[in-house]
């Protein structure tokens, strides 16, 4: 350790030596949906208790808490949320840290928890993601979510998140011939998966015609191209691999964690048809794990809008740039196809409580790799991926998982 900074080569060597292996030992999530009867703390505690039971933990083993939430201040008037969660979970006095990166808050909280265990600082940490969105009006939610973009130079001008992704969709259609039917195919697939997931907000499939005929939100995107407003929470408990075996018969190892950033405003990017942050995070994650995109069996990707999933499967390397729409239409990403994408139903079908999404993705992959995903189980799933995006792509985080 004393030679840590002597040379770049040595730094890499030291990282390899000192990083501990990290695994998920317990997972839990609330049902996603409109929960008039439940508040912020009810949702996160529900998910937390499930995760503790799942990991057969009492609670006193936990060294630290990381919580992802995007806009609790705007949506429920509550900041300082991780102190509140630790209090209500009975976890005081462990350190509790909030992580915020818009819709990638959950994915980043997972990464903070991973780093805390990998570094050796903590042995067991709990990572939560939560958002309570239905206590305020749709217009207020739209404004709050707008904060994920550039407030002064996008939102001030009248931009909304659907419109920012609509601007990407228009370019993707022009540059690669992507069609509204191909975008609708993402929604159809994800609703079909959601119908097999009892935790999902939407429990019924939709047809291509229903998507195409749904009300326009921001041309060319329609209501059924957009993820919904959702209340929900998800929790995972991480432990060093050594300890993980004590708590779980089937720990799921996090074999890579990578994150990248890009401009806050969409208009400042050279291309509107790719998310550079996703491409970079994915490349780093695959390098860390020594695997490639074609090895992935099951992936939860950030489909806040249908065009976002098309770009995600391209940027992650599942398909060539520009072929995402056609691949989706051809069933390449359907359940038990080449790569099963968004088996939970994704943000579109399962729901998108923004801060919870990145953690929920890890919960779904854990169930898939344990072989406990029921009707939506991917056969022989061995390698899983999660991809969580903040805003229009200013933050992206990619994790890879495998059975121990």
């Amino acid at each position, binding site marked *: 350790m004393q030679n840590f900074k002597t040379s770049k080569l040595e730094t890499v060597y030291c990282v390899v030596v000192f990083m501990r292996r990290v695994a998920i030992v317990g997972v839990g999530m609330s049902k996603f949906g409109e929960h008039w009867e439940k508040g912020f703390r009810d949702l996160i505690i529900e998910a937390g208790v499930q995760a503790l039971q799942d990991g057969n933990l009492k609670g006193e083993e936990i060294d630290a808490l990381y919580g992802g939430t995007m806009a609790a201040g705007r949506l429920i008037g509550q900041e300082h949320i991780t102190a509140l969660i630790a209090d209500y979970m009975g976890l005081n006095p462990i350190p509790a840290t909030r992580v915020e990166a818009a819709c990638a808050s959950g994915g980043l909280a997972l990464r903070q928890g991973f780093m805390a265990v990998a570094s050796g600082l903590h042995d067991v940490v709990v990572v939560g993601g939560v958002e309570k969105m239905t206590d305020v009006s*749709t217009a207020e939610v739209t404004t709050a979510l707008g904060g994920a973009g550039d407030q002064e130079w996008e939102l001030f001008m*009248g*931009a*909304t998140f659907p419109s920012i992704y609509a*601007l*990407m969709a228009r370019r993707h259609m022009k540059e690669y011939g992507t069609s509204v039917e191909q975008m609708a195919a993402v929604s159809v697939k994800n609703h079909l998966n959601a119908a097999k997931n009892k935790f999902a907000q939407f429990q019924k499939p939709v047809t291509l015609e229903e998507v195409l005929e749904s009300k326009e939100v921001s041309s060319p*995107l329609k209501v059924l191209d957009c993820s919904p407003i959702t209340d929900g929470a998800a929790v995972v408990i991480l432990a060093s691999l050594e300890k993980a075996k004590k708590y779980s018969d089937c720990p799921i190892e996090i074999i890579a964690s990578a994150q990248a950033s890009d401009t806050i405003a969409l*208009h400042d990017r050279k291309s509107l048809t790719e998310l550079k942050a996703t491409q970079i995070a994915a490349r780093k994650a695959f390098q860390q794990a020594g695997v490639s995109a074609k090895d992935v069996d099951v992936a939860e990707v950030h489909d806040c809008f249908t065009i976002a999933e098309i770009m995600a499967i391209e940027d992650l390397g599942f398909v060539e740039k520009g072929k995402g729409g056609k691949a989706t239409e051809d069933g390449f990403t359907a359940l038990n196809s080449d790569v099963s994408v968004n088996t939970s139903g994704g943000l579109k079908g399962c729901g998108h409580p923004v801060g919870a999404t990145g953690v929920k993705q890890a919960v779904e992959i854990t169930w898939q790799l344990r072989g406990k995903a029921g009707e939506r189980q991917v056969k022989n799933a061995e390698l899983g991926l999660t991809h969580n995006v903040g805003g229009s792509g200013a933050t992206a985080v990619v994790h890879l998982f495998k059975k121990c």
Partner: protein
Amino acid sequence: MKSGSALTWRLIPNRYRLIGSHCETCKENFFPTRPVCPSCRRKGKMVEKKFKGEGKIYSFTTVQVPPEGFELEAPYVLAIVELSEGPRVTAQVVDCSENDLGFGTPVEMVFRKIQEEGKEGLIHYGFKFKIKK
């Protein structure tokens, strides 16, 4: 978003007159003003630059579901405009529907009311664009 008058006041040069930055080291232009060149960082030398307000449509959409403060305006056309000096901006395009627009349609800046904060709040002005005849 409700904002204080100081916030509005300090953005007046950018919003009213399209003042941005030019880096004398790499010659790149930026809108709005940036204190640091993201490419050159400490080697960059940023000076003020006024943009002409001419550009072309890079991408566009029609917003049907508006955020707070834009309820009376929807539906409206929103675009990313590529200014002739290079940078791109997000802005509304007025006096047209999206059917009148295409990729590369020439547009010019117009000075317009952007939003008002209720009956007694601030009225915000700034740039929008219209099709250049």
